[in-house]
């Protein structure tokens, strides 16, 4: 009741919605942990999968996901940011750039399986990369790229015009303006967007399954050319099994995946905080 008096009816509804989201998130974690408890032990994060649920772990899948996160970001971030800078700062405003922009915006909505098929044809078969970690990473980079571009471009566009004009007025070159004024101002927005794009890509199983993720890998991948394995595909392989114990393993792998994604978000948050602090 205090809530209603303080925030009014609409404010209260919004507060309840926020509360529901929090409760849903906590429930998700609690259910997963409860589900995972019977089979998850100390070795779960390093052990290889096994046909005996008690021995199985997510070691290879976790290592695969970390590899993929690194490679995907290493490819998609510079490419996406570069494209966004070009479109916003260098490209002339013609019908062609307009068409390119709307094409990119549309690509951001293409279902992930479609990227899997493209990745299979282009990276796995075309470049001869096979069903490897790089092939999967390049596919996920392609999946994340449109979102990275769209978000970065809109963050760059949102930088106040006065900032540019003033910097130019003081004699800064175009690149100096971009490097020292626009990018720092746009960085928080760019980071938020990239973080969303990458965490979504990390959670994808479908495109990796299309490329041919291995169902059973006995070792943690140590190089980009090693067979493709990841937490989402491991979760898929385990949930498809009919034995109960493997559902528990899948729940454990879900928790591991959530932790990885949360860690990625936290890193982005920390970086963003530092960037903001630097400006003040």
């Amino acid at each position: 009741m205090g809530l209603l008096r303080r925030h009014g009816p609409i404010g209260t509804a919004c507060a309840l919605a926020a509360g529901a989201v929090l409760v849903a998130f906590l429930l998700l974690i609690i259910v997963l942990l409860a589900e995972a408890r019977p089979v998850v032990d100390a070795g779960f994060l390093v052990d290889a999968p096994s046909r005996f649920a008690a021995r199985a772990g997510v070691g290879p899948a976790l290592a695969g996901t970390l590899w993929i996160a690194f490679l995907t970001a290493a490819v998609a971030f510079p490419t996406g940011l570069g494209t966004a800078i070009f479109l916003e700062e260098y490209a002339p405003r013609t019908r062609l750039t307009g068409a390119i922009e709307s094409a990119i915006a549309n690509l951001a909505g293409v279902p992930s399986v479609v990227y899997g098929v493209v990745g299979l044809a282009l990276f796995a078969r075309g470049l001869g990369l096979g069903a490897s970690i790089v092939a999967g990473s390049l596919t996920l980079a392609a999946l994340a790229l449109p979102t990275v571009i769209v978000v970065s471009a809109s963050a760059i566009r949102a930088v106040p015009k006065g900032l540019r004009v003033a910097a130019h007025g003081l004699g800064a070159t175009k690149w100096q303006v971009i490097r020292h004024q626009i990018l720092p101002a746009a960085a928080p927005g760019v980071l938020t967007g990239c973080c969303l794009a990458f965490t979504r890509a990390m959670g994808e199983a479908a495109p990796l399954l299309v490329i041919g993720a291995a169902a059973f890998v006995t070792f943690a991948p140590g190089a980009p050319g090693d067979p493709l394995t990841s937490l989402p595909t491991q979760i898929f392989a385990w949930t498809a099994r009919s034995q109960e114990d493997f559902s528990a393993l899948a729940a454990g792998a879900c928790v591991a995946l959530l932790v990885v994604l949360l860690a990625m978000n936290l890193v982005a948050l920390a970086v963003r905080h530092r960037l903001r602090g630097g400006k003040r």
Partner: protein
Amino acid sequence: MTIRPNAGMKRLGLAALAFGLFGCPGGAGGPGALVVVDGSSSLYALSEAVAEEFTDEFPQYRVAVRFSGSGGGLRRFCDGEIDIAAASRTMTSAEAARCRETGRDYVAIPVARDGIVIVTHPANTAVSCLSLAELRQLWRPGSEVTTWRDLRPALPAERIRLFGPGTASGTYDYFTTVVMGRPGASRADHYQTEDDHLIARGVAGNRWALGYFGSAGYAPSRDRLRVLAIDTGFGCVGPTPTALGDGSYSPLTRDLYIYVGRKSVLQDHVYNFALHYVSASERLASEIGYASLPAAEYARSRMLLAGARRGYP
């Protein structure tokens, strides 16, 4: 394939990266050597068990197992992408031609025997045996059987939900060949997947469902499925280990193979893995849901491998 992390790798272009990492098929077979097995989902449970045992015994080697179906695995095998293909049927002449084209010389090694198991929901007790003719009527291309009553007038008029292996599966090829007389002849208006677990789940979740797959797909879900016997004219026979062993569950009994490249056998890790596959199959086949082959067959398989290792044709 041996891959050594290389500090200068990052600077290389994409194509060079691809070459640097993948341009060395085979490798020396030393520590860290990788064996990739792909193919039949009917053999997946066995391959998985063998891979696990193998890495327990040889921790220096690494194994990855995929299942893209017998057809998918054999194609990758002929293209030289993988060392070992698991197949629930022998190679077709088209596949053999492809292997000849790419210069892929191989040995085919029988490792276990399994039956194609026809399953229904456990609550569906109205039917316990199907004749081969009924199977044909149910699964033929363009079949008009949609309810159990269409199949046999005494059965309820409930819609049959059908689950079966996908077209890349050797089980699909084998089933259509022996039941319909022509590989690939099947109705297509049903749920198809290369993943046996999904077939088991589908049938276990639908009271009036029917599905078929290799017996290893059935083993982990035996509590949730009901197996139908098959009548080929000599009475109803179920896919029991005895029936699989003596061939009375005919014609739905078949041998399962691994295909090993002759050049790959020259590498220690592939040779050891293939040998291990044979001996582990002899020990584990019945535990995982297959039937073992006669001991003489396994002895012959070992000789085939040893011969290939020495370069005998």
